[in-house]
């Protein structure tokens, strides 16, 4: 994110120079992600939650589960919606207000990674077909920014979903009614893993930190499921990739 931060050209050339020597600014190998810390249930009153730190990027994801109307033509499926917001203290360059294209893309890429992996079996989240289904909302808030929010948010959302318990509703008088005291597991079919790589010069690096992020020409985010299949991918940035 942090598109408004103008990185010093000097820093940029330093990063590139180091890469030419096979080194990264923070000493990592090219294919080495930063340290990942996951704290599940960070928000106990939510239906699920996780606080995730990937290096110095930090995201909290909270899950709210509540009855909703199904989408048209999707009456036999629950709803999954994933959002993202950069909290204004996550970086000096962040501005309050409605999300810009960067944040919208971030939310949609994280959403698709989880959706396309079929992590949640949405067919089990139907209260009454065509009338009422269960909606799972995964809201990511970025607490600290240091590059690669794609993976940080993806890990937070995934961990938060895994920590979730869902209430149970039944239709009474055409209204979805909470059954008190019942808590169900969310139906999980697989665990998607997101990996984001950046391209600087001709070098591909995994999990770029904030300075690397600002120096990249292009990036690619690949989500794989538990079987090693690729289930979502997004190229970004104003450069191109060669296929090999």
């Amino acid at each position, binding site marked *: 994110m942090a598109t408004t931060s103008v990185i010093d050209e000097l820093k940029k050339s330093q990063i590139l120079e180091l890469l030419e020597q096979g080194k990264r600014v923070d000493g990592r190998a090219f294919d080495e992600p930063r340290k990942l810390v996951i704290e599940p249930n960070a928000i106990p009153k939510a239906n699920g939650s996780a606080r995730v730190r990937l290096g110095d990027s930090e995201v909290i994801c909270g*899950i709210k589960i509540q009855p909703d109307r199904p989408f048209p033509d999707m009456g036999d499926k629950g709803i999954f919606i994933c959002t993202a*917001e950069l909290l*204004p203290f996550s970086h000096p360059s962040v501005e309050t207000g409605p999300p810009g294209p960067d944040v919208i893309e971030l939310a949609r890429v994280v959403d698709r990674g989880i959706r396309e992996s079929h992590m949640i079996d949405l067919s089990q989240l139907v209260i009454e077909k065509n009338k009422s289904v269960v909606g799972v*909302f995964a809201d990511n808030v970025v607490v600290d920014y240091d590059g690669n929010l794609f993976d940080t948010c993806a890990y937070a959302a995934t961990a938060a979903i895994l920590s979730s318990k869902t209430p149970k509703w039944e239709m009474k008088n055409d209204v979805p009614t909470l059954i008190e005291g019942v808590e169900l597991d969310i139906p999980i079919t697989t665990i998607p893993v997101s990996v984001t790589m950046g391209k600087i010069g001709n070098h591909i690096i995994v999990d770029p930190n904030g300075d690397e992020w600002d120096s990249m020409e292009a990036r690619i985010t690949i989500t794989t499921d538990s079987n090693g299949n690729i289930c979502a991918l997004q190229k970004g940035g104003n450069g191109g990739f060669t296929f090999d």
Partner: protein
Amino acid sequence: MGGRDTEIVLLDENGIRCDGRKVDEPRRIMIKAGGLKNADGSAYIEFGDNKILVGVFGPRDVHPKHMSNTDTGILRVRYHMEPFSVTERKNPAPSRREIEISKVIKEALEPAIMLDKFPRTAVDVYIEVLQADGGTRCAALSAASVALADAGIPMRDMVAACAAGKAADTIILDVNNEEDQAGQADMPIGYMPSTDKITLLQLDGVLTPEEFKKCVETGIKGCKIVYELQKKALTDKYFGNGEK
């Protein structure tokens, strides 16, 4: 002040409240100075089940320029709740309630800050409610004071805040969510101990003039408890944990 019929016994025959507290006992309070990587100052508070993060930037330049003041610095405050912080998922757009609370907290902090020491610039206070449990504005105001101090903003004193109120015909300290819903009055107070000044004062609910007086006195006692914890949080950060 719904005043709704409720089965909850707000105060039992032994003077014990529904969450086990005495009438003049606040909920569990934990305050931590610092924590955020990118903010100039920050604080985290747990106040009962409230969990609130505050980040501060500044003094920094004002954009657009015509909003700055050549004679004095300006303070800007945003109070914001995460979608997952409350029982029903909250729409991410700022509500009228959030806008009013932002203003009330701003005006409660201004008497404490030496704005004239940094003309033409702004200090931004960003408050994020991760989990809400009644009394968020007091908890937020207390944490904001610590975050401002952590950022090194010149201040006359910190503002400590706590609510008093009335439930079961008794004046109580630190109204919790059930007491707010089923009780008779809620009065958030913000207070600067060194100058004995009240900088935030609101009341919802019905009090006789005598009860009003007692309520303010009770609230100020609570503020003084909070004030000690605010100082301890800063001491712990800057001079090591002296209590160990």
